[in-house]
């Protein structure tokens, strides 16, 4: 199959930079698969599982909020605040962060803090579920 250039960037590092055959990510309107020759496209990514084809396998990663962009030259860029390979997720840490968020949600806090805790919970749950699936 034909390959395209993919870069996955976070402010802390370049997470992935190589050629790949396929990228699967979950956007606000559901899972999309991107192959070579995709039309120029920009979409928001929600906390979910993202898959990148490496060799003959799809490697799985947990991704937080972000954005995927297909440029006119066919290069694909994923920008996100946090992304981890599923086999590198620290499940114990994710569990701790989940417990913390749940505690926050139960405490009667302000609307803002409630929203923050909810987002944190979503991310933690996503990381745990991605880690367990693989």
């Amino acid at each position, binding site marked *: 199959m034909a390959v395209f250039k993919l870069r996955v960037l976070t*402010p802390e590092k370049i997470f992935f930079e190589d050629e790949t055959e396929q990228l699967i990510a979950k956007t606000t309107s559901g899972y999309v698969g991107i192959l070579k020759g995709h039309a120029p496209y*920009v979409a928001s990514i929600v906390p979910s599982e993202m898959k990148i084809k490496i060799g003959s396998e799809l490697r799985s990663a947990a991704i937080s909020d972000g954005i995927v962009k297909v440029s006119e030259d066919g290069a694909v860029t994923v920008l996100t605040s946090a992304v981890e390979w599923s086999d590198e997720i620290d499940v114990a840490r994710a569990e701790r962060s989940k417990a913390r968020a749940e505690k926050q949600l139960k405490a009667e806090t302000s609307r803002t803090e409630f929203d923050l805790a909810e987002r944190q919970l979503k991310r933690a749950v996503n990381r745990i579920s991605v880690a367990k699936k693989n």
Partner: protein
Amino acid sequence: MANMKDVKRRIKSVESTMQITKAMQLVASSKMRKAKERAEAVHPFFEGVFQVMADISRDHEFTSVFTKKKFKNSVLLIVIAGDRGLAGGFNSNVLKLAKAKADEIAASGGEAVIMAIGKKAVEFFEKRDYDLIEGFPQIAEGIELVDTMMIADKVIKRFKTGDFDAVELVYTTFVSVMTQEPQHLRILPVENLEYLGTKHPMTIYDPSPDEVFDSLIPEYMGGMLYSAIVDSFASEQAARRTAMESASDNASEMIDKLSLLYNRARQAQITQEITEISSASLNDNS
């Protein structure tokens, strides 16, 4: 004539101070190197985020609360300084700029609220008559993106509810090992995006350009804060390294002077003793 014992004691004390300043200099320069690497790693991400934001605002008629230009003139100043002193003018320079900006806003009839990052910044604004809404001491070293994302989320929430209608950043940027400059930067509302790059009107936005733009804002804000904090931390270490280097130089100069004084005093004492002995033996012979 200087007292030999006193001079000796002073030399010892200067020597031990110099050991400390030397050690601090070495620690600062290794921390600086690491922080610089982290600060540089942010660039590719930012280029990507800016590019998408610029594409959207150039190619589409769109509306976002984050680009609105109406002003009630209430501004959130996010001030980033260090957690510790002994870094030359690092803290005082950036805090001076922050204070000037806050006063400027107040003078033009606006309202400035402050969010302080770094212990020195928190202390500075607590002591004075400013509206400090939140302080984050001791987070710069070993900062992770999740920390700044949390701060960014809070700021965005409050921006949306209209607590303030602009967000500005005051921090120190690393120019070179010798120079670090205090900086003032507006991050919200997002400005001057329209002028970057060429048009790509064929791009599909899912679900819509507006929503993609708004969903990018937390990443933009969190990344911006992260990069400013890392940049400021690198500057702090560079400033400390320079300050400690000159302190060590001064100490070694001082030791040289004191040693000279000590040797003179010792020589004077020996001369005096010889004079005493010889005059005593002269007296015995007579």
